[in-house]
């Protein structure tokens, strides 16, 4: 679906969500911060636990676990918030269980996902790495139209 997010050889941040490894294109990552107090925003989508204050800037954070329909987050000392900047003026945080390492994957290492399963549209492909398979996140879908998703979720 969104080939735009995969380069010939791309670097990805490997993160753990519900014991699975996911890769997020490093180009969109602005920062990685430790877990911190999240302020709940009423009436927001259920996969948005709220907003955080990052050096005076208010950033909405999304729970990828909730987004993918897994069990709710359990915050551990390894939990992190990845701050992404998909657009110059808009930031968003992703809550992940753990941040592993930076992975370099070439085009051949990535199998484009062809499954029709609904959840898998969040995945643009599966990367093969000596340490195991890595699901490459399709950011445009993850960030996609909040209202439609909210209807689906609710």
């Amino acid at each position: 679906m969104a080939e735009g997010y995969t380069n010939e050889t791309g670097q990805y941040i490997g993160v753990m969500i519900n014991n699975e490894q996911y890769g997020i294109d490093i180009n969109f990552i602005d920062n990685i911060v430790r877990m911190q107090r999240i302020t709940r925003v009423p009436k927001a989508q259920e996969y948005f636990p709220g907003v955080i204050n990052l050096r005076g800037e208010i950033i909405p954070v999304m729970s990828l676990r909730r987004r993918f329909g897994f069990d709710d987050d359990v915050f551990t000392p390894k939990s992190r918030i990845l701050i992404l900047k998909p657009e110059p003026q808009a930031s968003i945080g992703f809550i992940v269980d753990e941040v592993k390492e930076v992975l370099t994957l070439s085009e051949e290492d990535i199998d484009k996902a062809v499954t029709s399963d609904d959840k898998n549209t969040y995945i643009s492909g599966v990367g093969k790495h000596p340490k195991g398979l890595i699901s490459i996140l399709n950011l445009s879908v993850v960030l996609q139209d909040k209202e439609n998703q909210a209807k689906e979720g609710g």
Partner: protein
Amino acid sequence: MDVSQYLEVFIEESKEHLQALNEHLLILEKEPENENTINEIFRAAHSLKGMAGTMGYKRMQKLTHDMENVFQEIRSGKMKVRPELTDCLFEGLDALQEYVDNIINTQDEGTNDNQPLIDKLAKELEIGLNGGGAAAAPEPEKKEEKKEESKAQEPVQNPSSKAGSVVYADHEKLAIKEAASQGLTTYEVHVDLQESCLLKAARAYLVFKAVEEFGEIIKSVPDAQMIEDEKFDFSFVVCVLTKAGADELRKRVLNVSEVKEATIEKASFENETAATGESAESKSEETESKPVSASPAAPVTASQAPQKPAASTQKKAVVNRSVRVDIEKLDDLMNLVSELIIAKNGLASLSPDDFSKKEKRSAFNEQIEYLERITTNIHQSVMKVRMVPIESVVNRFPRMIRDLSKKLDKPMELYMSGEETELDRTVIDEIGDPLMHILRNSADHGLESAEVRKQLGKPETGSIYLNAFQEGNSVVIECSDDGGGINTEKVKNKAIEKGTITPEQAETMTEKDFIDLLFKPSFSTADKISDVSGRGVGLDVVKSKIESLSGTVECKTALGQGTTFTIRLPLTLAIIQSLMVIIGEEKYAIPLGSIDTIEDIPITEIRRIEKKEVINLRGSVIPLVRMADILEVPVKAPEKENLTVVVVVKGDRKAGLVVDDLIGQLEIVIKSIGKYINNSKIISGATVLGDGEIALILDANALV
């Protein structure tokens, strides 16, 4: 040498004086006998004239001078204020404004003499004075006389008086000789300024500039830097290499105002020990570069002189980028900075060795917290500096309405309020045009003519209101008139006629839909196109402009009663006063502007109307809004016997918000909660509290 340091002040002040003149002239038009106003006008005109003169803007000075003469006669009671006269004076102000605009753009007043206007003023003066029974010579003649006089006063040149007062260095002598071989004469221009001259340096600069037109300045006594620093008495000497004659030069220098006297002499050093003529060409080239360093404004060679004006127009960007800041805001900032220094010293005094001691550690933490608080405050204060009262935009509207009133021949009056409402500077710069469009619309389309109004039993003078106020996260500007309102039937027919909508579509459209049609491009209901409005390029431009500022514009109308345009502009950098409350375990901010009262209501006083909880508060029934339910707080506070109710207002409607506890009043910076998260209407933004915690801001308007 550069007058730009004075130029900024000049522009700022002329704008102010012009604004004052406009305002007072408007008053004078209504109250011709108002003595204070006349004095005010006279003062402003006089200052303006003085300033223009000092800066060397002759045309502007002349026009102001002639206007001042008129004011003088009015002030002394010899002349009556007549409508033709005020028209003429307003025209004069516009011409002055034009000069100022030219100066802002090019540092030059332009070439328009406005002679017809000056003649008109003179004529008005004559008519006025004769009508008033006093006789006086028409102004232009007076002017001539003065000029004649000043010419007569010019002393006869005395060629020997000042010769030799300039001592030339060897390289300068060489340059002069070199120039002589090229047919250029070296003149010493001895300039005496009037002793009343205030800005000597600026004056000298003008002289330099004038002289530069003729050739290359090779030397000045004292040197250019000293002159720039005003380190000279009232006279100085400029040496110039030129082809022009002495008379020409002298004339030009005398043209600079406040120059008392100028004597031109040929440079003479022949009687001194002549420099050895054997010096190489290279040496003379060297000398050419010397004068440049002495006088940075002087071009390297005479042939480059014409480029000078071009260079000065490029400088314009610097002009008028300044913001006037309320001294209180600066004081706040200053205080915070001094606190910052105290905090820094506090931290510095804690030595790292002491950290084993518990009390020292807590002292350290205290200092850090203190520091945090200060930096947050500084942040806020700096943002406040960017806020400008809307007054700077709207203060030109009374004059505009007055002109429109004359032009359209409809009596009308503009009432403004809330001019002190502050908006971010970027918004202020953009909002002027849309507002003007709407006001012109009101004046042209909205208000009926006097006869029609009379027939309808309305006061003959139409009213236009412009109100600005802050409402939560936004600034609201309301523009209303008591005119005929929008005839939606007419809009409908026009839209069908134009093919914007089909008759079938029209059937299902509501009144509001028709009004929205007005914001469509090229849609106008005016039967005729006037040059005020009606071309159909108004409201859609207004809408797109306001939307580009991420604001909204709404229109409400009542046929026969008038129309109201409501512009809402968000404040991206807004700082508002708010009431901090606790709901469940969460902190929320309610903008103070929308709060009416805070009440303590026993639960026994709650009544139910159609299953909705209401309270009877001093005779008015107010619906209760349980905030904990609306916000779906996860942990609810136990029900208490007395409810804390924050009564909010929107227009004439009220609602009582039930909160769990009050924290207090706080000044907060409104921030967006980001693009990706669903933003319900109840939350207008978020703010970061002193301890880094986030509090969401409730939009009371969405709850009422």
